[in-house]
């Protein structure tokens, strides 16, 4: 087995599934176990400056090997796997030279990975695919990024002639639960630029993401015995429904794509007296984003005009913002990233992230942090798979990035 596959198999064999029930970080003990394994391996590569903090964040630093000033870079991936799908006892299998057909993952359970359902498979025809046995996730969501970063560091350790600046590595616990950016200590990662290595197909790079707000709409009704309610009852559920009807029905997640924003009602709960709705507001463009937030407030005002002051109350809070504004301040960042991808023989694909990434939060902490592909597909499901060749390409891209930033300066 080639070393990168060996490495990947070693990491996915450790069950680091996050546990949403635990309010601690790390939410599962095995994340620390994986971090310790990685610490040992980094030390074997000759990386001396590695620590694991009390929350199981691994921080490593590789000093620059050139005299001149070169921007320092950080590479970030996560240790945990999603709590959504069983994550223990992963049995990865390689399908060599994928022929473009369906792959039977589990005969007994009849689980089939088919290109009809997942057309992205066809981009990997002729490559070697790593798949699951149909009962668990693969864990490539997180561990592919870790594997690629580790292989890149190994490459550097074997090639001291490659010039590079200071390099930081961060492996975070509990990305899936959002703790990764809650508890990261940026003072341990004083890099100029960062890259998360996560998700996406070969060549993908992301430096734009949604502006995201959460609107909480509270509807105040008034209860009265339903048998004596004529002309008196105000049913908060029915009023909530009026509100929902006022939101443009073709601007929802299921009717939008690419750069289109949306309003998404993600939750409702309530009875006659009060009903609370949660709206997720998303847009790439900051003007449209403000408009959408304003529109939710205006809808409440519009309805209050008829149903009475205070019937609808709206609270809108920013959740995360588009990192583009942070990344655009350093044109060289994206130029170098695209160059690194081309140098690996791939055409870069800049794809807007219809969601958030850890890099968004990190960018707003002061370190511009786009995302580069790790190559995993169908994360958070038993259909998760990854191509060995894509992992190799991702490794190359990381090495290229390190070289280009050193060369360009």
């Amino acid at each position: 087995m080639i070393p990168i596959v060996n490495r990947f198999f070693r990491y996915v064999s450790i069950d680091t599934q996050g546990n949403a029930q635990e309010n601690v970080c790390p939410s599962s003990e095995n994340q620390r176990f994986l971090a310790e394994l990685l610490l040992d391996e980094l030390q074997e590569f000759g990386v001396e400056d590695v620590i694991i903090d009390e929350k199981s964040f691994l921080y490593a630093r590789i000093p620059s090997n050139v005299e001149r000033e070169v921007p320092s870079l950080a590479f970030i991936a996560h240790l945990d796997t999603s709590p959504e799908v069983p994550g223990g006892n992963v049995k990865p299998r390689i399908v060599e030279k994928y022929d473009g057909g369906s792959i039977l993952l589990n005969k007994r359970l009849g689980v089939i990975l088919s290109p009809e359902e997942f057309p992205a498979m066809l981009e990997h025809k002729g490559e070697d695919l790593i798949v699951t046995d149909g009962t668990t996730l693969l864990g490539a969501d997180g561990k592919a990024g870790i594997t690629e970063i580790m292989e890149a560091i190994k490459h550097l350790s074997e090639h001291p002639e490659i010039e590079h600046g200071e390099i930081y590595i961060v492996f975070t616990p509990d990305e899936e639960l959002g703790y990764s950016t809650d508890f990261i200590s940026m003072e341990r990662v004083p890099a100029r630029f960062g890259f998360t290595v996560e998700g996406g197909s070969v060549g993908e790079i992301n430096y734009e993401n949604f502006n995201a707000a959460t609107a909480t709409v509270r509807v105040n009704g008034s209860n009265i015995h339903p048998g004596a309610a004529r002309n008196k009852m105000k049913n908060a559920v029915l009023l909530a429904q009026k509100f929902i009807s006022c939101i443009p029905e073709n601007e929802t997640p299921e009717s939008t794509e690419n750069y289109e924003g949306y309003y998404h009602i993600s939750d409702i709960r309530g009875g006659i007296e009060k009903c609370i709705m949660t709206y997720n507001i998303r847009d790439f463009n900051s003007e449209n984003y403000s408009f959408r937030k304003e529109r939710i407030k205006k809808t409440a005002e519009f309805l209050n005009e008829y149903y009475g002051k205070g019937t609808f109350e709206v609270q809108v809070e920013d959740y995360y913002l588009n990192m583009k504004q942070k990344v655009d301040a350093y044109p060289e960042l994206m130029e170098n990233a695209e160059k690194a991808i081309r140098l690996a023989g791939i055409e870069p694909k800049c794809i807007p992230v219809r969601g958030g990434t850890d890099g968004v939060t990190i960018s707003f902490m002061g370190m511009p942090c786009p995302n580069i592909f790790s190559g995993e597909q169908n994360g958070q499901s038993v259909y998760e798979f990854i191509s060995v060749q894509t992992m190799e390409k991702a490794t190359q891209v990381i090495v290229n990035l390190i070289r280009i930033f050193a060369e360009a300066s």
Partner: protein
Amino acid sequence: MKPIVERFFRYVKIDTQSTWESTDIPASKNEFVLGQMLVRELKELGIENAWMDEKAYVFASIPSNSDRDIPAVAFFAHLDTAPDETGAGVNPRIVENWDGEDIVLNQNKNIVMRVEDFPYLRDSIGKDIIVTDGTTLLGADDKAGIAEIMEAARHVMEHPEEEHGEIHICFTPDEEIGNSTEYIDIKNVPAKYGYTMDGGELGEINFENFNAATATVTVHGTAIHPGESKGRMRNAVLMGVEFINKLPWRESPVNTEGYEGFYHVTDFKGSVDRAEITIAVRDFEEVGYEVRKKRIYQTVDFMNDYYGPGTIEAKIEDYYLNMSREVEKHPEVKEYALEAMRRAKIEPIVIPIRGGTDGSSISFMGMPCPNIFMGSANSHSIYEYCTVQSMEKATEVILNIIKIFAEK
């Protein structure tokens, strides 16, 4: 103070508030306390067969004093008060010979019962009104009913010369949280006819109530990361909204009265993958009731036709039924009550109950059981009140019913 008022004050001072949160039976320990007090008082009246079971149901019976075969009759009232307002520290006060002016319930807190807000108060001008101090409910619902039944029992025991059949008394716990007939052991009330003393103002009497079902509609959506969901996400909340939209909006509680039925969405909760809607279905007419239930299923089918089988599911369960189905089989239970009122010089006000009543479950247990006024208004609130005169009239109606059953 008149004995019935003394009695009433004694009962309302025991806090027997039911709460939805309580998992105990009865919901409030004090229902035992009130129940014990009533058993003791019944025994003091000379009623030997008076006792309370382990769930705080009080049972008592007065044997027939006649050789003739007179049907046994039962009177019911409930021990608890509503969860809506506190029942602790009730401080009742009598406004004697009320002059029709606004009543200041609480000077310090400036709580006033205004005639403008409660115009039906005017019916009580010249009467003695019992009110609260504005910080609690009164508890006349249903301690007025208890006091009236107790006073009637006292009269019966003190007048052995008046002929009567077997009389049963039953005080139930937890009526306000819908549990009073849940645990009743009806064998302990072997009467042919029953009356609950739990109605509203003077003269009110109920022979009908809603047929009531609860429909639980479950919507199954498909959750996908919203950023990647074009053409694939199916949001259960939005499909739930569509379902509610298809119910006739004019047939909701806020648009109906009298004998009109309704669909009432009482609860809606969920997120993208799953949502649940609770709908209360109500109708007096049997046919209308069935049509409404069927309409829910039709709406489900109609939507599934578009969204695919199993997307929406409905489960409908009967909650209670219209007691008129049982009461109409025994017209005498109506006629005697109406006559008892007329003899007490009360004009009967026959009102269909837009809700349930304990008499409904009791009727379906085999004892037709209409509901009679106990003389209070503004139940479940700090503005609850009753008049001494109405309580006396209700006592008279009970005694008249006993008399009429003996006569016929």
